[in-house]
């Protein structure tokens, strides 16, 4: 046996999670449920940001037909539609995971959370795929 004392350096996993935001945002060492929690928060924050963006953009409607219809043209461009697909995926993940959180979190389904998460996320993926196709083809 030999010993060496190395320079301080950051190993693969690092020190204990910091308190607050940084702590729960840190995915290292997380398992399925922890990832679900993380994903739910990230999508949640994204949706809050979207909600306020949406409300601000709707103000264009109050400026009359020209402003709105110009915006609609932009909104139908492919990059914008791609954002729509991301939005749809976010809503599906957050909403369907929310069903799991509600059922499990009130103790209605106390212990099947893992299966529920996998099943609901599979549904989310399928619907997001179908919705994405429709968004692009219907435009």
């Amino acid at each position, binding site marked *: 046996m030999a010993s060496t004392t190395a320079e301080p350096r950051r190993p693969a996993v690092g020190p204990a999670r910091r*308190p*607050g*935001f940084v702590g*729960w945002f840190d995915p290292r060492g997380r398992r399925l449920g922890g990832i679900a929690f993380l994903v739910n*928060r990230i999508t*949640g*924050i994204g*949706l*809050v940001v979207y*909600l*306020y963006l949406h*409300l601000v953009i*709707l*103000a264009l*409607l*109050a*400026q*009359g*037909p020209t402003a*709105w*219809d110009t915006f*609609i043209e932009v*909104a*139908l461009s492919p990059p914008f539609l791609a954002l*729509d697909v991301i939005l749809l995926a976010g*809503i599906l993940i957050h*909403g369907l995971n*929310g*069903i799991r*959180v*509600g059922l499990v*979190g*009130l103790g209605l389904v106390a212990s099947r959370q893992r299966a529920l998460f996998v099943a609901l996320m599979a549904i989310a993926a399928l619907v997001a795929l179908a919705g994405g196709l429709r*968004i692009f083809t*219907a*435009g």
Partner: protein
Amino acid sequence: MTSDQPAAARPEAGPRMVPGFVGQVLSGAALLVLLGLHMIAQHFVVPSGLRDFAAVVDWLRNPVVIVLEVAFLVVVTYHALLGVRAILFDFGFSERTEHRITGFLAVVGIATVAYGVALVAAILDAA
């Protein structure tokens, strides 16, 4: 909740607040319905998803739609800000700061709904 006190000193259950979690689940359940209606009503009834100005205004003249949209706005704001509150509370602020956060978010929520209602009026006015 007075969690600064040791648990044993906390008052026996009087009338208790509904925990944020229950509010979140109930509003979330309502959103599943309201968001569905909102998406169908606003984006899926026409092939292109988004609609031109005339169509939006026409749609908004229906009082049922106005009620649904305002209800959606109230619930989605409540759900969103309750979520923000839960995230902020995980920073472990003091009880006092938490009360302030709750108050601030309540003001934001009321302002958001007021803005939405005013917007509907303004849109109908602009047409």
